């Protein structure tokens, strides 16, 4: 039985984003060539990285359901012998694979740094791997969220905006943390700060708490998306 199929995306449109993200990473690299920083900061600390990542995820996940609703193809999709769960998972998988493919070239940057590391400064692989690991998890988390937002509305723009707003909750959490003086809110924000997580992980501080947060969040969003699609029966 078909459990996985590629949800059709506007491939040509996406390639543009790929180019943009590629460029931004290049700048990152050249920018940091003269500085002696930790690997994690180079790869993940730049605002460019985060911006392009968030934006791309929002833009890729927004048409997943909203477009289908708009053009009516949701009807043919859901009247084929596939379960709603399969549809949601397959769309998620397709979007996430795209994100992975987009991030893959950044590994090359790591490789370059390694090769250029002539002075024999300390270099270990594990933080990088951990850093990538958490970024992948975060990507999955955000993609699932974007999918959920897309399934809630007909309008792609609305779902993109909702997605960005939602993602900034974790993204800006670190900054907001210091703006809020309420103690419990401060701690909550500290816990969910994605940027912080990435920094920690890429320094080798691996904590199970963010992992669980992202994994469970992803599962929750996917579940809610399935429910949202199911609910059309009763509308």
């Amino acid at each position, binding site marked *: *039985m*078909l459990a996985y*199929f590629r949800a*059709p995306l*506007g*491939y040509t449109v996406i390639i543009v984003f790929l180019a943009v993200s590629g460029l931004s990473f290049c700048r990152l690299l050249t920018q940091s060539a003269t500085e002696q920083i930790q690997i994690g900061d180079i790869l993940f600390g730049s605002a460019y990285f985060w911006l392009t990542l968030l934006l791309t995820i929002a833009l890729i996940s927004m048409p997943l359901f909203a477009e289908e609703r708009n*053009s*009516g*193809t*949701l*009807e*043919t*999709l*859901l*009247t*084929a*012998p*596939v*379960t709603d769960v399969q549809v949601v998972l397959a769309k998620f998988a397709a979007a996430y694979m795209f994100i992975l493919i987009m991030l893959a070239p950044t590994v090359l940057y790591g490789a370059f740094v390694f090769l250029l590391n002539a002075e024999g400064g300390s270099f270990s692989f594990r933080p990088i791997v951990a850093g990538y690991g958490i970024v992948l998890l975060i990507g999955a988390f955000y993609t699932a969220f974007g999918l959920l937002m897309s399934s809630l509305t007909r309008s792609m723009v609305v779902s993109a905006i909702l997605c960005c707003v939602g993602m900034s909750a974790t993204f800006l959490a670190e900054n907001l943390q210091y703006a809020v003086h309420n103690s419990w809110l401060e701690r909550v924000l500290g816990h969910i700060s994605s940027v912080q997580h990435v920094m920690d992980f890429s320094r080798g501080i691996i904590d199970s708490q963010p992992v669980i947060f992202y994994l469970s969040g992803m599962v929750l969003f996917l579940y809610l998306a399935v429910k949202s699609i199911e609910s*059309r*029966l*009763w*509308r």
Partner: protein
Amino acid sequence: MVIMGGYGWILPINVKDKRIIIKVDDLTKRFSSGTALKGISFEVERGEMLGLLGPNGAGKTTTLRILAGFLAASEGSVRIDGVDVLEHSFEVRKRLGYLPENVPLYQEMRVDEYLNFRGRLKGMKTKRLRNRIDEVKSQCGLTEVSSRIIAHLSRGYHQRIGLADALLHEPELLLLDEPTIGLDPNQIRAIRDLVKVLGQKHTLVLSTHFLSEAEMLCDRVLILNHGKIAASDSPAVLTSLMKNKTMVVAELAGPHADVTAVLRALPGVTGLFWNPCPKAKDDQAAQEWNRYVMECDADADARCGVFEAASRRGWSLRELKQERKKLEDAFAEITGSAPMD
């Protein structure tokens, strides 16, 4: 559920009437904007071609969507081949092909790609899929456009692609929502011919606005109005209709009161309407012409009676004809719109 036979045999209840492929009982569908379907019930036999007729908003598309499993009924049961549409949604979907209104397609794909995608979605194995794709393409006349992008094709082709997709997994039942809407006359003819051919091997339920189409294609017609079934019968029966009438039209000049009295008294006449005829500008005649429309029983021909009455009493008669009621008139009557001339 099982039935215990009188001798203690246990019979499976699915040994039902094998003729019936769709059984709808008391189907009700409520939306937040109102009730779309109000307890309709009907059955469809295998191999039958059923037409759903009705004005916009009558509930045709809603009925088809519920049958296809896209929406759920608020009340009532819908069974296809004995299985409930919601509970065994998978089973049902494998046995039916659905073509929604306005044929939604993935515009950026090519025809072959799209059919391939749909086939894999339906769980067809590669080899069988490849054969089927070739078959449906030739059936629907799509072989020349196999590798073209869907967005570049005309609406007529879109409809055919949608049909091909619906046929791909060889379903027994086809649900078509307004298959000829938005097409030009040539395309309409092509699709209708195709549907006719399909009707020979499949059970079809199609919804349409076009009464002539329903007359042409369907064995039976269900007229829906405001969510209820207003009439259900073969087009021929519906045409000679509920009131079973024909109309005789006569243009007469004569004393109005006399004329109406005499005409009403003619055998077979059950109703009389009249309109004054518009006067030509230079018509000097003193006579006032009126146009009388008589509703008659189908087997009575009131024309002779009108002629005799007119000649005997000296009325002038300048037009006399009989009109059979068409399905359009029946439709208008049933759905409460103004009766057509």
